């Protein structure tokens, strides 16, 4: 098996107070491996140790015990950063710079020659859709725009490992969808992605494997599909048929014959996100259309069409 991109062994972080006494155990003996080319999610409530883990991997914090390696190098070795792209939760970019200057600055930090910097900056600005705003200072940007330019700076060095801290936080559904698509694209390009998020549906959508942390302890760790599989329940979907009381009765009888019970039966619903995106697409396709009182909302099936 190939060497993992990230590996932690008994990784522990304890924050001490001024007198050297234990203040908080932020992470306790974490053992995880992240393989090349996967999207790995770190989940957990606030204060569970997700961001601490990321900060330890990036060398922003030093481990109290244990060790972590990134691409075989110690986390304190700055050379590992040559292959890492990092997008923090908040966009901590310099707001007095514009998009071009921002990418040029971070490109210089990777020691990229001018020709490469200019070419890559232009490609990334186009990729994140900020072509028209590239000359504006970041202080004039919306949160979503800052998140986009933040992602562009994380990709300026064409990294092998991309670490994203709450990448969809604060984004509107369109922005969130764009971000998730981009993360999938990164995986398709062969990059490894580590992300932590509160938005469980985002993680479920895009992550291959996850680790769930709670109060600094690893609680669950594995493939999303495996972890979420409920072998004690059966889900079925049918088409070309209408739900009638007779059908429901027949279904109940069949299931009783097989020793089970029918819990629920009904019409499937789409996700609100899908519905919202379809509405927006519809609006774009029919400019001037607006919802009037008394009018019936577009049903899901109609919106699909």
């Amino acid at each position, binding site marked *: 098996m190939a060497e993992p991109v990230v590996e932690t062994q008994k990784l522990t972080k304890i924050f001490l107070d001024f007198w050297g006494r234990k203040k908080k155990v932020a992470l306790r003996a974490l053992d995880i491996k992240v393989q090349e080319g996967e999207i790995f999610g770190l989940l957990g409530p606030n204060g569970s140790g997700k961001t*601490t883990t990321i900060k330890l991997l990036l060398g922003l914090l030093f481990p109290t015990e244990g060790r972590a390696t990134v691409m075989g190098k110690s986390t*304190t070795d700055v050379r590992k950063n040559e292959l890492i792209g990092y997008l923090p939760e908040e966009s901590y970019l310099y707001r*007095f*710079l514009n998009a071009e200057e921002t990418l040029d600055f971070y490109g210089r930090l*990777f020691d990229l020659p001018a020709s490469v910097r200019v070419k890559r900056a232009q490609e990334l600005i186009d990729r994140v859709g900020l072509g028209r705003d590239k000359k504006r200072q970041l202080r004039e940007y919306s949160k979503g725009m800052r998140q986009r330019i933040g992602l562009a*700076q994380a990709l300026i060095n064409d990294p092998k490992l991309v670490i994203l801290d709450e990448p969809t936080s604060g984004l509107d559904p369109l922005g969130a969808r764009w971000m998730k698509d981009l993360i999938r694209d990164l995986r398709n390009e062969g990059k490894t992605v580590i992300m932590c998020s509160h938005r469980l549906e985002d993680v479920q959508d895009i992550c291959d494997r996850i680790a769930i942390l709670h109060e600094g302890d690893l609680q669950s760790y594995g493939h999303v599909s495996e972890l979420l599989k409920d072998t004690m329940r059966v889900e079925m979907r049918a088409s070309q048929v209408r739900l009638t009381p007779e059908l429901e009765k027949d279904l109940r009888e069949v299931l009783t014959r097989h020793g089970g019970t029918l819990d629920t039966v009904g019409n499937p619903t789409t996700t609100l996100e899908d519905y919202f995106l379809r509405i927006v697409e519809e609006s774009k396709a029919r400019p001037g259309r607006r919802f009037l009182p008394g009018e019936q909302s577009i049903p899901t099936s109609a919106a699909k069409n």
Partner: protein
Amino acid sequence: MATGLLDPASTLFQPLFAALSLERDPLTVSSVLNWPVLRYYLLTVGSVTSLCLVFWFLFRGWKQVSKLGSGTRSAFIILALLSLPMLGLDLFCLVQFTRPLWPGYDPETTPPAALATTIRPDWVNNVMALSSLASILAVALPFLVNLPRLSFRRIFAIAKLSFKEAIRKRVLYAFTGLLLILLFGSWFIPSKASDQIRTYVTVVFWAMTVILLMVSALLAAFGIPADIKSQSLFLIVTKPVERVEILLGRLLGYMSLLTLILAVLTGAGLLYILRGVSPEAAEESLKARSPVYGLLHYENTGSEREGDNVGREWGYRGYISGAAATQGGGQPKAIWDFNSIPSALASRKSVIAEFTFDIYRTTKGFENQGVGIGMAFTTRNYDAEKLRLEREAREREGKPALTVEELAEKFGYYQPAASITFYDYSTGTVEVPGKLFANAQTGPADKPPLIVTVTCKEVTQYVGMARYDLYFREDETARGADTLRFSWNFAKASMGLWLRILLVTTLSLVLSTYLSGVVSLLVALFIFLLGQFQDFLLALVLGRVSGGGPLENLSRLITNEVAGKQLENTALNNVIMNTDRVLREFLGGLLNFLPEVQSLSFTEYVSNGFNIGGADLAANAIRTIAYLLPWLLLGYHALREREVAGPT
């Protein structure tokens, strides 16, 4: 470190508060780049780095050492072992600081331990200096190992960012304050016509100094802490950036901006000063005199080293009277021996001698009337008897009297007039024939090449002089050249200010790698101010401050005792005075870590029309950079060892 760059012995015995900033012998590069000075520097820096190694081992332990690469680890261990003698010396010095509590301690004869490297044998100091060097290298090893990885592109990127940050955050607005001073300053500055340049130079440099130093301290102290607070630093340290590149980049960025501003302000200030200069002011200060100083001693006063004391509180000048000191005694004289005369003066037609003496009157005299003095310039070849015989022979033979040039060239003698009148607070001038300097070039080696003798011609008055009150001008005195030389001199004074900006910026920046912005700012300015008052602190260490040390002064405040009165010999007072002595010993140690600030101020040179020597400037630059290097090393480790992120 500051004291380390001077000869410790001369530092101990320099006259305290005696000299104005321009009244000192200019430094030369060789005076700061020689083994004793370098050795003192190594000992001072090494005393700290060896202690740092101990603390590092105590708090980080062997685990950190084992993380080093095998080659680096071996080098580190060897260097750390070589540092042990220096650590021993540290402990020895700490014990020495308690000497005032030992029996048989004599405060009058025992110099402070921290300043007294000269009391150790030379070979001990040499060994300790090498041990210090080992400890410095051990501390600098991580930096030295990473040195090949440093990228100028990254440093330049951070420098450019710092530059843009300052500009776009409208830091330049602070300098409009200076514009106000320049525009309206003259409304509030009363000055005599002859003081015009002196006053304007002082005001311009004062304003530039205050604004530039405050801006540099503010910029540098808040740069990194603001980045940490806003977490912008996260995105820099997660790139392949060495922490020292952040430090150097910030320093380069701030210094580039401040240098640019300083250059513009210097140009504007010069234009402001040079517009409409009055002839009196031009005569007084629109120059860049290169003085050649002699050594002063007295004759027929109380002592050869001191003139008469007229009771002035400031004992800088010694006085000579017009009357004989004792009945039947000789006329009191002030004599300058010029042991080194630049050979270029010998080829000149004339050389200007300038003097500024103080008048102490015992009778009222007349309004606007000066005091007469006698002046004689003689070389080592001057023989009064021979000259008398020559004059008599010429008189007998009816030959014309000797001309001034003949007297100077053949007999090494020049007397401008029987009595020269001079006035208080003005510079007197005498034109001395160049032939006299030609005569002084060769002659008996045991005599000073040139001697100037000054006597007071008025019986009821006293004339006061100090060593730097009389000098020859080595510079050419053409008017156009004077303006040009003044302008260049003004620029050189700005370079002195640049060194002070570098000092404050680096200190603030280094401190901000660990402390918050406000604390960094305050500590940097405090260190700078302590450097400014180094003379006073030295006087305090040597026990020359009236009223004693801090505890003694406190006791006097409480008991309402006057400063001059000896404290009573009670048990409590003994405890107070001995504690003060121990405190003074520690203060003596602290003195070594203060920057030389006073010698970086060249305003007095420019305002009084004295040339700032290039070598003096270079020597000061070397001292400042040498002082800052250990600080930069400290900043490197502070930034490297700290966790940039916090728990949240």
